[in-house]
C-alpha cells in the first residue's frame, strides 16, 4: 500500500497539532489570549503540510495516484505501526486540518473571555492530532488508538464546562457509548489477528481465507465501532446530548470530522465489505434507518443545536448507507460536502447563540434576519446545500450519488428511504430557518406562552455561562464571520467536483481506491430521473415548511402556533423514539442492579458469610474443647484416670494383652 519511504511532511502534519496541544496545556496560564492564535497556527501549518504532502505523495507513483507509507515502530512482533497516506486518508486529512483550522479561528472569537481559553485550544488541538492518528494509521490497532483518543477529546470538549451537571452527564454518556464501540473494533482486531497474524490493513485486505462466517463477524464488530462513533441506530443517543459542548466543538467534532469516522472505517475496509453481501446489507439498512429516524426526530426539536445534531445523524446515515451498499465514492463524497455545509450551519448557529447570549431555543428567536443578516445568509446557503436543491449547493451532488448508488447496487428500498428522507430533511431544515429568521423576535415573550415547559432546561442557562464568560465580545466580530464566509464558497461550489459521472475529478481521484463491483444489471432508472424525484420531494418539504412557518399568516400568530405545536408534540418525538430509555433500562440499570446485588448482598452476605461461617465453626470447636478445661485439679485427675483405663482396656482387648 503506497510507496515506502520517509516523509517529513507526513510526520510534521501529524505531530504539529500534538505539539500545539502540549504547549497550550502546559503553558496555558502564561499564554492567556495568545493561546487561540497559537493553537490555530499549529493546525494551519499542519494544513499547509498536508497540501505539500499531497504533492510529495504523488511523486514517483505511476499514474499519479496518491500513495505514501512510512513505518514507525512496533509494539511486539505482529503489532507494527506506520503512517499511510492514500486518497482516502488524504481527503480526511484535508478536511480535518482545513475545516479544523477555520473552526479554530472561529473559536478565538467564540470562546473569547472564557476562563479556560487555553485549555479549550489544547483540547481542540489534541482532537485534531487524535483524528489524524485515526485516519493516517496503516493498521487496525493504530486506528483504534486514534478512535479512542478522539473519543477522549470529544469527552473533554462536551464536558468542557464541567461545572454543569448536564454537560458532565452528556460527556460520560458519549464516552461510555464510544468505548462500547471501541470494544467492537477490538474484537474485530482479535479475529483479524487470529487469522492473518498481522494488524496491517494491507495484510488483512489481501488475506482471502477467513474461516467461514468470520468475515461477516469482523464486519459486524467493526460496524459496532462505526455505529457508536457515527451515531447510528441504536447507539446514537449520545450525539444530541453532546451539544452541551461549546458550539465550535459541535461543528468540528460532532458534525464535520469525528462522527464521520465510521464512514471512514467502512470505506477503509471496503475490501472486507465487498466480499460479504450480508455485511453490506446490514450496514446499508442501518444507515438508511438512521437517515430516516434522524430526519423524523429533527422535525420535533426546538433547540437549534439539537436540530442540527439530528440532522447530522441523519446525514451520516446517508453516508453509511452509501459506503455500506458499495457506493463508496458517493458516501465519501457526502462526507466531504457535509463537512463544509454542516460546519457552516453550526458556526452560523454559533453566531446566533453568541449574539443572543446563549439562547438556543428557536421558539425564542424569530425575525433574526434583520438583526443578524450575515448569519441568515450563512444559514441559508447551508440549508440550501443540505436540502439538496439542484446545482445551488454541494449536498445535491453527493446525496444523489448515494441514492442512485443504492439503486445501482440493488437496494430499491434504501433508494426509496433515501428519497423520502431528502424531503423530510428539506422540511425540518427550512422549519428551523423560517422559525429562526422570519416573523417577529420572540425573545421578550414569556417562555410559557411559547409552550416552553421548563425554561430553565430549554437552553444553556445564561447565568451559569456568565461564570465562564467573563466578558463577551472583546474579540472582533470578523474572527467569527470570516471562517463562515470562507466555508460558504465550498458549501456552494464544491459539489461540482462530483459532477460528470465517470469523468468527474472525484471519480478520477478515487480511481484506484475502492473495489469496483461489476453490476448485475444497469440501474432501472437514470441519474436524471432520480435527481428529478428527489427534487420534487425536496420542493414538497420546503413548501410544507413554508406554509407552516414561513408564509405571512403563519408568521403573524407565530407565538400561538408554536405554543400549540409544543404542547401537542407527540410523546414519541419528544422522547426520541424511546431509544434513550431503552438503553438506560437494558444496560445502565441492569448493570447497576447487578452491581448492587454483588456489592451489597453477594459480597458481604454470601461469600464473606461463607468465610465467616468457617471462622465461627472454628470458634464453636474451641468452645466445646474449652468446657473440659475446668481448672479443677480433681477433674483433670479423673479424666486422666478414665483415659488410662480406656487405654488399658483397649490394650488388653484389641492389642491382645501383654505377652
Amino acid at each position, binding site marked *: 500500500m503506497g510507496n515506502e519511504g520517509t516523509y517529513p511532511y507526513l510526520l510534521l502534519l501529524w505531530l504539529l497539532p500534538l505539539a500545539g496541544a502540549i504547549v497550550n496545556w502546559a503553558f496555558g496560564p502564561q499564554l492567556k489570549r495568545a493561546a487561540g492564535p497559537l493553537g490555530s497556527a499549529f493546525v494551519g501549518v499542519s494544513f499547509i503540510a498536508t497540501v505539500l504532502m499531497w504533492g510529495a505523495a504523488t511523486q514517483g507513483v505511476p499514474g499519479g495516484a496518491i500513495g505514501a507509507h512510512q513505518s514507525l515502530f512496533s*509494539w511486539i512482533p505482529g503489532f507494527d505501526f506506520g503512517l499511510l497516506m492514500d486518497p482516502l486518508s488524504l481527503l480526511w486529512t484535508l478536511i480535518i486540518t482545513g475545516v479544523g483550522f477555520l473552526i479554530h479561528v472561529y473559536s478565538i472569537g467564540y470562546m473569547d473571555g472564557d476562563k479556560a481559553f487555553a485549555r479549550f485550544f489544547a483540547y481542540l488541538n489534541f482532537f485534531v492530532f487524535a483524528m489524524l492518528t485515526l485516519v493516517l494509521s496503516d493498521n487496525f490497532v493504530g486506528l483504534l488508538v*486514534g478512535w479512542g483518543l478522539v473519543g477522549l477529546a470529544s469527552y473533554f470538549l462536551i464536558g468542557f464546562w*464541567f461545572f454543569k451537571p448536564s454537560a458532565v452527564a452528556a460527556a460520560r454518556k458519549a464516552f*461510555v457509548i464510544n468505548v462500547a464501540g*471501541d*470494544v467492537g473494533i477490538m474484537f474485530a482486531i482479535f479475529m483479524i489477528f487470529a*487469522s492473518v497474524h498481522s494488524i496491517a490493513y494491507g495484510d488483512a485486505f489481501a488475506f482471502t481465507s477467513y474461516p467461514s462466517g468470520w468475515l461477516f463477524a469482523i464486519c459486524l464488530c467493526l460496524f459496532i465501532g462505526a455505529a457508536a462513533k457515527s451515531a447510528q441506530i441504536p447507539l446514537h443517543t449520545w450525539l444530541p446530548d453532546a451539544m452541551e459542548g461549546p458550539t465550535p466543538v459541535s461543528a468540528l467534532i460532532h458534525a464535520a470530522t469525528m462522527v464521520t469516522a465510521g464512514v471512514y472505517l467502512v470505506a477503509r475496509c471496503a475490501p472486507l465489505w465487498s466480499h460479504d453481501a450480508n455485511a453490506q446489507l446490514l450496514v446499508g439498512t442501518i444507515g438508511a434507518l438512521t437517515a430516516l429516524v434522524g430526519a423524523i426526530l429533527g422535525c420535533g426539536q426546538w433547540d437549534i443545536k439539537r436540530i442540527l445534531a439530528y440532522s447530522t445523524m441523519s446525514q451520516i446515515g446517508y453516508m453509511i448507507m452509501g459506503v455500506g451498499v458499495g457506493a463508496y465514492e458517493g458516501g465519501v463524497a457526502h462526507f466531504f460536502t457535509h463537512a463544509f455545509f454542516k460546519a457552516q450551519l453550526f458556526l452560523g448557529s454559533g453566531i446566533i447563540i453568541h449574539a443572543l447570549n446563549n439562547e438556543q431555543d428557536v421558539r425564542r428567536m424569530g425575525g433574526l434576519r434583520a438583526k443578524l443578516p450575515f448569519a441568515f445568509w450563512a444559514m441559508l446557503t447551508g440549508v440550501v446545500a443540505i436540502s439538496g436543491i439542484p446545482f445551488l449547493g454541494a449536498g445535491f451532488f453527493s446525496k444523489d450519488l448515494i441514492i442512485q448508488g443504492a439503486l445501482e447496487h440493488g437496494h430499491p428500498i434504501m433508494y426509496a428511504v433515501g428519497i423520502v428522507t431528502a424531503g423530510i430533511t428539506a422540511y425540518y431544515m427550512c422549519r428551523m430557518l423560517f422559525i429562526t429568521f422570519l416573523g417577529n423576535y420572540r425573545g421578550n415573550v414569556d417562555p410559557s406562552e411559547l409552550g416552553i415547559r421548563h425554561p430553565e432546561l430549554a437552553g444553556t442557562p445564561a447565568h451559569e455561562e456568565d461564570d465562564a464568560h467573563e466578558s463577551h465580545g472583546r474579540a472582533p466580530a470578523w474572527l467569527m464571520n470570516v471562517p463562515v464566509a470562507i466555508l460558504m464558497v465550498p458549501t456552494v461550489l464544491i459539489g461540482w467536483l462530483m459532477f460528470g459521472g465517470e469523468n468527474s475529478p472525484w471519480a478520477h481521484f478515487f480511481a484506484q481506491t475502492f473495489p469496483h463491483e461489476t453490476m448485475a444489471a444497469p440501474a432501472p432508472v437514470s441519474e436524471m430521473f432520480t435527481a428529478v424525484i428527489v427534487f420534487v420531494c425536496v420542493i414538497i418539504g420546503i413548501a410544507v415548511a413554508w406554509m407552516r412557518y414561513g408564509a405571512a399568516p403563519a408568521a403573524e400568530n407565530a407565538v400561538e402556533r408554536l405554543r400549540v405545536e409544543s404542547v401537542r408534540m407527540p410523546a414519541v418525538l419528544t422522547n426520541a423514539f424511546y431509544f434513550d430509555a431503552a438503553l438506560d433500562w437494558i444496560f445502565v440499570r441492569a448493570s447497576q442492579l447487578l*452491581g448492587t446485588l454483588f456489592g451489597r448482598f453477594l459480597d458481604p452476605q454470601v461469600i464473606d458469610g461463607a468465610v465467616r461461617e468457617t*471462622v465461627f465453626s472454628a470458634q464453636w470447636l474451641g468452645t466445646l474443647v474449652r468446657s473440659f478445661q475446668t481448672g479443677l485439679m480433681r477433674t483433670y485427675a479423673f479424666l486422666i484416670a478414665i483415659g488410662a483405663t480406656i487405654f488399658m482396656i483397649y490394650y488388653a482387648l484389641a492389642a491382645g494383652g501383654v505377652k
Partner: protein
Amino acid sequence: MLVLALILLPIVVGLIMLVMPSRDENPVLAKSIGTVVAAITFVLALGSKDSEFSYQWLSRPFQAALHFGAGSISYWIVLLLAVCTFSAILATNLPRARAFIGHMLILEGAMMGVFLAKDLLAFALFWDVMLLPVFFVLLGWGEHPATAWRYFVYNFAGGLALLMATAAFGILFGSTDVIGRPDVHVIGAWVPWIFVGFAFAFLVKTPVWPLHTWMPLTYSDTPAPMVAVVSAVQSKAGLYGLIVIGMAFMPDYLKAYGGVFVVLGVISLLYGALTALIQNDAKRVVAYSSLSHLGLIIVAIASFNPIALQGAVIYIIAHGLFSAGIFITLGYVEEREETRSLVRLGGLGASNPKLAGALCIAALAALGLPGLAGFVGEIVILTGVFQAGYTWPAILALIPIVLAAAYMLRLFQGIMNGPQVEDLPVRKDLGWLEGIALAPIVLALVVLGVNPHALTTFDPAAYNATHVNQGVATR
C-alpha cells in the same frame, strides 16, 4: 551482591527507623530519609539485571539456598516496586510518619526478596515477611482492627499453604533452588496437591473471586501511600508466582486446571467491574476495579498463549503504575477534603486543576485509554486469549472494558466535576513535591503506552508457553 543490597538496604533502614526512640519525631527528616533510600534502591534496581547472590543454607531434608537474582519478569517488577515506593513515600503525609515510613521500607525490602528470590524457600519466607508491615500499618493507622485481622487470616492461610507446598516440593525434588531454571519439572502423585497449595496462596494474594473479600476492606482502610504499593506490587506476587512457579514447574497441572482459572478470572473481571459501579467509597471503587483487572491477567496466564503472556507482563506493570497513581491521588484528595465518599465530594476540579489532571490521567490509564499503558496490556492479552481459542472469555472480557469506562468516569467526575460543594474545605492545589511524586508514574504510563517494546524482552518460551495453541480455535 547488588541484589542483596536491594533487599537489605530498605529493611535495615526501615528497622532502624522503627526502633528509634519516639520522642524526636521529625516527619520531614523521616520522609527525606525514606525518599533517599527509595531513590537509591531504584538506582540499584536499574543495574540489577545480571546481578546474583547465592548462599547455601540447608542441605537436609532438601537443598535450599539464599539465592537471589533478577529474571526477565522480576527485573521490571522490581523497577516498578522501586518507583512506586519512591512515589508513595514522597506522597506520605501521615501522623507518626517515621514509623509509617519504616514500615514502607520494610515492605519494599521484603517484596524485593519475594520477586528476586531464586529459591522457593526464600520466596515463601519473604512472602510471609511482606505481609507483616501491611498488617501492622492496618493495626496502627487503619480505621478498623478487624480489617487487619481479616487481612492477616486470609493471607497467612495462603502463606501457610505456600510454605507447605514449598516443603513438599523440596522433599519431592530434592532442592528448592529452582526458580528460573528451565529444566525443572515435577511429576508424581503428590504434585497436584503441591500445585493446589501454590495456587491457593497465589489466588488469595491476587485475589480472584471468591477469595477476594479481604481486599476491598484492606484497600480502603490502609493509608493511601501504602495501599498504592500493595495494590501496585504486592498483588502481583501471586501472578508472578503463577508464571515462574506454576507455569514453569507444573505446566501440565496448570493446563489441566486452566479452565478453572479462566472461569475464575472471567468471573472476577465481571464481578469486580459491576461491583465497582455502585461503590461510594472512592478507594473501594479502585479496589474492585483491581479485582476486575487482575482477573484479566489470570485469564492471560491460563490461556498459555505467548502473546497473551507478553500482554500479561505488560499489564502487570501497567496496572501497577495506574493503580499506584490513582491511590496516591486519592490520598491527596482525602488529605484535602477529609472524606473519600463520592456522595460528599464534587467540583474539586475548578479549584484544583492539577489534582484533577493527575486523577484524570491515572483514571484514563485504568479504563484502558489507547496511548496509555493499560490499553496495550488489555489488547495484547485479549488478542492472545482469543488466538488461544478462548472465544467466550475474550468476548466476556470486553464487557468490563465498557464498565471500566463507566466506573472510572463516575469516580473522576464524582470528585472533580459538577458544581462545587459548599461545605467542603478548600485547600491548595497540588504542590510541586506532590507533583514530583506522581511524575515518574505518569511518565512511565505514557512511555509504555506509546512503546512497550522494552517490556517484551520477556520470552514466554522460557516458561513452558511454547507448546501452546497458536492456531485458530482448537479448543
